[in-house]
């Protein structure tokens, strides 16, 4: 496991990281999100000690890496494997040679190296590409090799710095699946630095939001999306703007509070309250714990007491608030268009309709 305490990095008078704390347990994927300029890449470079932190400590398996001498650090680094953005493979080495590289630096014997490279390439499903050069591999294949290389020295912590940037959605999901497998089977603690909310939602166990060098929001992904309406929660489950409501008072914001919300709630609540319910916008997804997470804007078509409506939703595990949700999303990533439903007016309407249809089908 890795424990980062009060990590601060200053360049002259500029404070890039300001007392960052977080801990990642073995077998956990912890995502750190934030817009560009929030300090994500500096945090990554401090964690693998490419940059020396100004103050604070980085404990890996109980050992403070910031206090080691240059010499001690060289061997202590093997506790942290790094997966770099766009893999960063050496172009003049084959896939197998790339994976073997960290072992060569530490004078691990030839026979041991061959065995381990075989094992790792097999692990990431790239055994058949062992003798290919990076230029002969696709982006996803390169990142698989990058993952294998990061694991070469059997680290207890894997630092993945934007591992899926530049990959298409399908390749991204296959890389994330592999990352989750590695977490479960090798019990590594994974620090996942990313700006893609889809990545966080599909693979992370916990999430921390970095803003101007500080972690200002954190929690397990399930906890964040089910129990709060914070900016991070709204960025994780972004709602496309639906058709403009005519009467504000009839509009309700819903949030799934429980993982086991019965998808038939739409019809069952409609019947209970004797009203039509129109879905204006919504996003429901299965998150990493296997339960559902959802966020929705609906309109109750018959005037009803607010308490009655709230109670009806609450009894089905849905949190309901009256009124329109604030649309501004501050600096949470996703605003720039990483998240479905936050860009392009036409696309938004289309997506909303699609989701609406899906929802109505699932409710019917």
């Amino acid at each position, binding site marked *: 496991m890795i424990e980062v305490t009060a990590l601060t990095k200053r360049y002259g008078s500029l404070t890039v990281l300001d007392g960052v704390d977080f801990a990642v347990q073995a077998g956990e994927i912890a995502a750190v999100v934030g817009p560009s300029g929030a300090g994500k890449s500096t945090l990554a*470079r401090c964690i*693998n*000690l*490419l940059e020396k932190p100004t103050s604070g400590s980085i404990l890996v398996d109980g050992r403070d890496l910031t206090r080691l001498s240059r010499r001690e650090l*060289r*061997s202590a*680094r*093997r506790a*942290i*494997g*790094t997966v*770099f*953005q*766009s893999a*960063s493979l*050496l*172009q*003049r*080495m084959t896939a197998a040679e790339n994976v073997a*590289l*960290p072992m*060569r*630096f*530490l004078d691990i014997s030839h026979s041991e190296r061959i065995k381990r490279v075989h094992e790792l390439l097999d692990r990431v499903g790239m055994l058949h590409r062992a003798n290919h*050069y*990076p*230029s*002969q591999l696709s982006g996803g294949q390169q990142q698989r090799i990058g993952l294998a*290389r990061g694991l*070469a*020295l059997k680290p207890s912590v894997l630092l993945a710095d934007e591992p899926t940037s530049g990959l298409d959605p399908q390749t991204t999901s296959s890389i994330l699946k592999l990352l989750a497998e590695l977490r479960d089977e090798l019990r590594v603690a994974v620090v996942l630095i990313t700006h893609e909310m889809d990545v966080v939602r599909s693979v992370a166990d916990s999430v921390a939001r970095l803003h101007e060098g500080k972690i200002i929001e954190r929690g397990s992904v399930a906890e964040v999306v089910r129990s709060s309406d914070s900016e991070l929660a709204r960025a994780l489950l972004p709602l496309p703007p639906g058709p403009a409501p005519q009467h504000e008072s009839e509009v309700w914001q819903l949030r799934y509070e429980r993982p086991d919300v019965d998808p038939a709630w739409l019809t069952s609540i409609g019947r209970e309250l004797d009203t039509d319910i129109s879905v204006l916008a919504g996003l429901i997804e299965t998150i990493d714990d296997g339960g559902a997470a959802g966020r929705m804007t609906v309109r109750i078509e018959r005037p009803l007491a607010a308490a009655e409506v709230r109670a009806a939703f609450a009894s089905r595990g849905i949190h309901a608030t009256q009124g329109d949700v604030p649309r501004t999303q501050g600096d949470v990533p996703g605003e720039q268009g990483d998240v479905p439903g936050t860009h392009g007016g036409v696309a938004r309407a289309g997506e909303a309709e699609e989701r609406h249809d899906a929802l109505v089908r699932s409710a019917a």
Partner: protein
Amino acid sequence: MIIATATPWSGVSSLLLPALGQTAAMVGIVMCIVVVLGLPLGLLIFNTSPRGLTPHTTVNASISWIANLGRSLPFLVLMATVIPFTQLVVNTTIGIKAAIIPMSLAGIPFFARLVENAIREIPRTRLDVGIASGASVLQVIRKIQLTEALPGIVAGLSLNVIAMIEYSAIAGAIGAGGLGYLAVNYGYEQFDSHIMISCIVVLVLIVQIVQFGGDRIVRSLTH
């Protein structure tokens, strides 16, 4: 009055071949010196720069300045300037031995810059890969910088060989022998057109061969 009498074509080879040998010897020896000294110098310039492995402003600025000094003088001027130094090192100021000193002094900084540029092309994250997995500075230099930059360094090498062939011709002026000396003394001063044409043809061929061969090697090294 000088009467232009061209060496008969049959006699050209007896003058041309020894000259070719002298040029090859000069360029060969100089290139050995250039690689042995220029490569580490290039690595030092890059790695003391802010983007290098061990940034050091003062060291970087001073060696950079010295390297520029070697490249700022036209070769003929450099050759004349370093005559006392040449005398000191090889104990003569004429002949092949004397030509090697100024040629090396011009070639080393040239090659150092080519090496530096080749290494600068490697993205920073590829160096980070080494450092983050526990490589020492020397290991990063050997396994990452030199390995990744090899095609670029070889391309620089052929460029450098061609420059040295050109300098060896200029060095003919201090009696270094070789193709340049032959072209100037026979071809130019004695209006021997056969020698002149032969020298030109051979020089053009050599340069073409070096460039072609160099490009082939670079291509085979690039993956």
